[in-house]
């Protein structure tokens, strides 16, 4: 059995946890953005194209940033021979 996880983490472990939180929340934000046009009305193809593709590329950029941070953390943890903290 694993020993119980500590209640408080060092700063970096804390950062990592929040990063994973962000990674988990990103699709929620995405769903919110993609469902937002439901509130609009009327002929909306033009604005819809602009809005949806903008929201889409913003999400992709956010995902790329998060992925880079997570990968950097993993690489550093691997170098220091730590296990994955999850």
């Amino acid at each position, binding site marked *: 059995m694993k020993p119980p996880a500590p209640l408080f983490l060092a700063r970096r472990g804390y950062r990592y946890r929040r990063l994973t939180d962000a990674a988990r929340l990103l699709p929620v934000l995405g769903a919110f953005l993609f469902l937002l046009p439901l509130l609009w009305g009327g*002929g909306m193809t033009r604005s819809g194209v602009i809005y949806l593709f903008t929201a889409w590329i913003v999400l992709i950029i956010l995902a790329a940033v998060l992925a880079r941070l997570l990968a950097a953390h993993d690489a550093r943890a691997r170098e220091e021979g730590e296990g994955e903290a999850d």
Partner: protein
Amino acid sequence: MVPFNLLVLVSVLYVVLLFLVAFAAEKRAQQGRLGWLRSPWVYTLSLSVYATAWTFYGAVGYAARSGLEFVTIYLGPTLVMIGWWWVVRKLVRIGRSQRITSIADLISSRYGKSNLLGVIVTLMAVIGTTPYIALQLQSVTVSFAVFASQTPQGWGVPDLRSTALWVAAGLALFTILFGTRNLDANERHHGVVTAIALEAVVKLVALLAVGVFVVWGVAQGPADILDRIDASPIATWEMNGGRWVTLLFLAGAAFLTLPRMFQVLVVENSDERHLTTASWAFPLYIFLISLFVVPIAVVGLAQLPEGSNPDLFVLTIPLSFDAEGLAMLTFLGGFSSATSMVIVAAIALSTMVSNHIVMPIWLSARRGGASMSGDVRTVVLRSRRISIGAILALGYLYYVFSGGGAALAAIGLISFTGVAQVLPALLGGIFWRGATRVGAIAGLVLGFSVWAYTMFLPSFGESVLMSAQMLAEGPWGIGWLRPQALFGITGLDPLVHAVFWSMALNTGAFVLGSLMSFPDPLERLQGAQFVNVFEHSGGARGWSGRAAEAEDLLVMAQRILGPEEAQALFQAESRAQGREGYLPDVTPDFIERLERELTGSVGAATAHAMLGQIIGGSSVSVEDLMAVADETAQMLEYSSQLEAKSRELERTARQLRDANEKLTELSVQKDAFLSQISHELRTPMTSIRAFSEILMDGKGMSPAEQRRYSSIIHDETIRLTRLLDDLLDLSVLENGQVTLNCQTANLHDLLERAITATASAETGREIRIIRDEAAENVSLQTDPDRLRQVFINLISNARKYCDAPEPELRITVRRRGDELRVDFIDNGSGIPKRSQEVIFEKFSRLSDQAAAGGAGLGLAICREIMANLGGKVSYLPGQGGAAFRVILPLSCRRAQAGNRQEGP
């Protein structure tokens, strides 16, 4: 105009290129130079099999018909991929740790390696994918036809069916060549994946090229395109909320459950870290694919003649502007989309069919015969090859019989909804340990039936498989069962209706079935391993260690993994166990590992069954677990019994040892007693003999001398008599045979007489006796003579041994309840602590100081007398001198019984 020969030539050259790329990649992989073959970019590009011909051609058509709705098909997977931390990461980890070969294998493995579930999912996948394969064949043939119709002189109206047949055959060949080359334990196909990555690039470049051509060639840039959107028929498109949400959900679900997506996403994943890149790069890929869809649709609607098929705008726009090179590229892009999908789907489906349908049948057919004769590898590979052929044949037949009419998008959504039925069992399986096989079967069967009833069968059109009347009024006129308005709820979009009811009933049945059933031990083991895959990737064991011959296992493993790999595996295990050679001990751990290796080749259920055949079905069963539990309980009980017994034995042994010690001690005491007695008797006897001899030949002896000698003899005989009397007395007292003469007496009188008696004795010095006469005036029931004997003894001892210069003896009497305490305390130096314990023993004398005094039996006799009188005499330490306490009962306790018996 593009001549037919050129088109065919380009197609053939392209196909040859694909073969070469696949071949080169395969070769590199074999040499172990994986390098960029395993880069996250190849992985990301391979995910693009999501974008099939349905996307390549169909998305534009979809946009032309339903405006922006097409984008949901790509937004759904985007959400899944940017949310990779939730589901995809877990799926990939499970896929790697459990050696999952397909989505059917995952479901089967999760729910206790149940082959029934594997079969159900496989059938669903085949039924859901066949129309989709037909769709790809159709897209290729239609795109051929587009070129044909553009040719004025004509190269003869090409026979669409024969084109489809050629395409299907070519794809089957490619898939068989590169998809079933090896039976790898990891089930990865580097050649195929690389070719697909190349195709992904081609289709992206083609679509982007058409997009750029449309935006900057036909129109005057993005602003113009936006204006054209406003002017086009789709400008007034309004979002249908129900469809929007449903399609988002459906696309996300299908992204996870489509067999081909599962194949590239989970099975072909060679490194979990690739997900980090794919999580944003794949959304970017489909973003770019979708980017120009609306512009192309808008321009096509405006520029092409009324009635043109919008599904082919991608191809017909460049053709109508005489951009033949671009048209050719687009054709290759569409060809790539179609072929990559068919290849991966065929690999995924053939793996499922061979592992979950063919192999179990083959195994059960063999059950009777000699176990494992023949090469299993050939059987597996052959069954896969045949499966690939059969799947493509099915697709072709579907294409032929459906007439290739329906809009592409509709077929895609039907297929999506069908495979999405696996979602509840999949997500439940990896997040909920309570999900059971029964629940999964119930959910899958119900969901799939509802899908078939509300969506699949009606899709063939009225009066084909379902009569128009049944569609309108329900079976037997039951309105509640109308296929597109279940439970009397009308007015829903048919797609929303089908997705809603199939998923709702599916999930409901899954949850209810899981809650109400009880899982197998194996199911629970697997459930724990899947749900907690991040906590422990090794873990629980599914085999109880009954002996199997390592040699049999090696024989079987060689047939599945190939001789070299199997031997390497066994040798490594041997070495890990610290032995030489190829045959390790068959431990449950080893069987577990072997099963996992085999699982990678033939699937969980089949691997389990094959090992089961050899090991004799000693996989864990409830009975096994119960038996083990029983045995453990019995052993516990037995051992506790043993412990109790041994404790008892120990106790007995200790008692025996004690008894033995006591006996030894007694024997020593007896010896000491005898030697004491003989010594005590011998001393007076010696002097009696000596003096009597002197008297016998005592001539010339004066009468005074004679008198003196005879008086010595007399004294010695008296002493002897007294000694013998004492011994007799003691023996009587010790045996409790004494007769007590119980009378009422006054303590004062008793003490008075005792003091008088001692004062008259010959030896002794003067001792002052301090008494409390008032307290002594107590009358009591006792044997006065015996009690006086005790007192005399104690007083004379004080007289003899008190070493104070002015000896004094204090006698105190105190009454405590119905007891009297009489203390005799002198002012001498007392008795040392060491000796206090022995003074009551026979023949114990503290010094020779008064050798004449007696044989050392006095206190021993006192103790016996007091015990017989129902009282006690003991040494009282800490009184400043020798102190003895006599405790007396007021009534004659023990003596009474004796008296009554003796009395008249």
